[in-house]
């Protein structure tokens, strides 16, 4: 209790709060720019924080992490260029909303649901971190395999014109995921001796290409059409009616995000995609999805920000990072002489609760900033396309080059852009492709790991209750439409 109060005391420490505020502003800023992710920023800031002392340093880095995840949604919604991979699900519905002139609604909902998701996960972290951390040990390759199958099972339902097109796009994504070094054989697949392909296709260039450049090319083709900007509505922020509508999506996203974030091998991007799937599955307005559903913004945004708190669970409680960003925060903690692990909760509770309190503060800061600035950001949709899209294109090139300083990624981004354009013209959606790329690689890898662990005996999956439960849920989800039709036929013959 003393530790708890000691931790909360930082909320009235002006120096720490200034750091949290600066971290939040910086985080929103870099999160919004494709190519400069939260993790890059934290890595670059790390040497500067050494002199700060552990608490302000960790609070500063934590604030960047929280806010960057939210910032990614701004560019996703406004120009269809996810500033952070985790915002790709947000772009699916958010950009459609902006096109309809509802940018302010989408931005406002993103800020609110992000903050709720983030705060929810922090409370879970405070109450159940050591407990939840144990779950990480029960998740081995067979469980991750089942989870990936569960995530992929929805891919026919989301996105484009028809289920067949969605399956084709998803299969393409799974195929792309096989490129690069194969963990279990140590050989390169489909790399054709090109070094840039040896480590596989990275998400960021594909996302930027599919969304932003694909959209730009599409705009070029449509430039003869009259611009249909509905300026009146652009700056309106969400009200009670919208919150009521999204209530369920936000909570669903928060729970899914926290749990998936807490699993060390999966991060905010997967959380957002599965959050999007489940939001759609449980929505009362399924018909709005793909056309700019506000629930489709709320669910994944709550999920990817909840994953932030979630990924701190294994980082702090096990010393095992739950994401690329927490890996760097972990390095920051270690450099400060803080050793994460279960003992942290008993030996240094003040530090721990200070981290929680600062993350809470960061979430509130970006909620305020996000709602306040939504009106201004929303005006981007009023910028004439002739100015807006060339800027976005330049941003896209930097965004693809930035993370690994690789021209190969720029080429991949451009190719993905053409694919994105063709997709738009032919009624395909990038959503299933991304799911295939993100989850397909995980699925193949974990299946092969499972088989090595099981000595190539598939029946041993039956000895893993968590995996079997997930697979059973997947099977029910897939077969449900069939059963319900059969049932109806039986109840009402003819």
């Amino acid at each position: 209790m003393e530790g708890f109060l000691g931790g909360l005391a930082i909320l009235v420490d002006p120096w720490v709060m200034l750091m949290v505020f600066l971290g939040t502003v910086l985080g929103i800023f870099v999160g919004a720019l494709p190519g400069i992710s939260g993790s890059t920023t934290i890595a670059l800031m790390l040497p500067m924080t050494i002199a700060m002392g552990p608490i302000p340093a960790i609070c500063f880095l934590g604030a960047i992490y929280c806010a960057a995840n939210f910032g990614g949604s701004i560019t996703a919604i406004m120009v269809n260029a996810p500033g952070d991979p985790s915002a790709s699900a947000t772009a699916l519905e958010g950009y459609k909303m902006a096109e309809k002139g509802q940018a302010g609604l989408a931005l406002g909902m993103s800020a609110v649901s992000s903050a709720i998701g983030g705060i929810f996960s922090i409370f879970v972290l405070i109450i159940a971190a050591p407990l939840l951390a144990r779950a990480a040990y029960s998740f081995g390759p067979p469980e991750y395999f089942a989870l990936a199958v569960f995530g992929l099972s929805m891919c026919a339902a989301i996105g484009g014109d028809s289920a067949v097109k969605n399956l084709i796009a998803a299969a393409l994504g799974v195929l792309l995921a096989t490129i690069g070094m194969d963990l279990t054989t140590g050989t390169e697949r489909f790399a054709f001796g090109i070094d840039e392909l040896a480590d596989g296709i990275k998400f960021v260039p594909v996302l930027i290409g599919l969304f932003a450049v694909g959209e730009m090319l599409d705009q070029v083709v449509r430039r003869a059409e009259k611009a249909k900007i509905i300026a009146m509505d652009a700056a309106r922020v969400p009200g009670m009616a919208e919150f009521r509508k999204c209530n369920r999506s936000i909570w669903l996203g928060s729970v899914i995000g926290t749990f998936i974030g807490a699993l060390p091998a999966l991060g905010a991007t997967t959380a957002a995609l599965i959050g999007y799937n489940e939001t759609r599955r449980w929505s009362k307005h399924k018909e709005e999805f793909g056309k700019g559903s506000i629930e489709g913004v709320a669910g994944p945004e709550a999920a990817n920000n909840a994953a932030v708190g979630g990924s701190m669970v294994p980082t702090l409680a096990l010393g095992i990072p739950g994401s690329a960003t927490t890996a760097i925060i972990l390095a920051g903690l270690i450099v400060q002489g803080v050793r994460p692990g279960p003992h942290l909760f008993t030996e240094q509770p003040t530090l721990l609760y200070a981290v929680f309190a600062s993350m809470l503060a960061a979430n509130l800061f970006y909620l305020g900033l996000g709602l306040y600035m939504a009106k201004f950001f929303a005006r981007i949709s009023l910028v004439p396309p002739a100015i807006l899209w060339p800027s976005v294109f330049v941003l896209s090139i930097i965004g693809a080059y930035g993370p690994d300083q690789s021209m190969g990624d720029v080429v991949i981004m451009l190719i993905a852009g053409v694919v994105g354009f063709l997709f738009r013209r032919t009624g395909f959606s990038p959503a299933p492709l991304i799911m295939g790329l993100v989850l397909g690689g995980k699925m193949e890898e974990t299946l092969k790991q499972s088989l090595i662990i099981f000595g190539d005996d598939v029946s041993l999956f039956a000895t893993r209750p968590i995996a079997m439960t997930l697979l059973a849920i997947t099977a029910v989800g897939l077969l449900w439409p069939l059963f319900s039709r059969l049932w109806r036929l039986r109840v009402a013959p003819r």
Partner: protein
Amino acid sequence: MSFITSRRSLARLGLGAGALLAAPRLTRAQAAFPERMIEVVTHAGVGGGTDITARMMMVQAAGEFKQELVVVNRTAGSGAQALQYLASKPADGHTIILVTQTHLLTQIRNRNVPQFADLVPLVRATDDPQLVLVRRDSPFRTAADLVAAGKQRSLRFGGTHVGGVDHIAIFSFGRAAGLQQPTLVPFRGGGEIVINLVGGNTDSALVNPAEAESQLRSGELRPLLALSEKRLPGFPDLPTAKESGIDCVASTVRGFCVLKGTPEDRVARLEQGLVRAMSGPIFKTYLENTGQSPDSVVGRAEWGAQLQAFHESGREALQALGLLR
């Protein structure tokens, strides 16, 4: 708003590029080495353990050389692109590469990159011995139990990808201990290896102490052997493999090299400067806090010998594993 900010950052990028271009300005007369910014190329992404090692070195090296240092991340191809980047620069000591065992394996498997013989070792930065770990309730109470069981069946060891550094270490350990060839369960990185060992999906793993620190402290994992030359200061009661009659040493090493053809006086200057920079308090604290050996930093003689030894044992292991074409 956002696109305006993007332009601003563009402008900044432009300024940065300008500074980069201006950097190799003409020097008057015989300028002292280094005469301009030193590039440190690494195969690690920003924020990876190897990247952080480079950045920690740089904190005090800038003052030592009176020049800026900058990290260049060339991540593709397990070091292949980093090596190619090095080779694309003149051998004048202004480009140094952070080499790990991964680079040596990439060189053995890929003849199209600069080979081991094309590198001149400078200094070692970190040396992180590995431990043989089992989980708390493992039937293997001692190293002898593990060895005995490993002679009956193929044990499952967690490690990084097939043909990677861990695979070589596990293979060498198995051979030195007379085990049936162990089965590698490949994972992405130390965190997953540790989790799956605790979770019971593998029998054992070779892990750096810092990677499993929390689990070692809580007793969820038990060390059986240290794969170091001497006993480790953090584990005074833990026997080394050599003491137990298993001739196997395995550690994760990182250090610096330059391209062959770099003038000898510059190699000596770099060696001296880097050793001094990494003997400073900041790098010392970094080594201590990350649980790496305090004797990590050594000059080129010892570092070169270690690389040479790994180059040979790595080739042999890859051949025996059938991974060399």
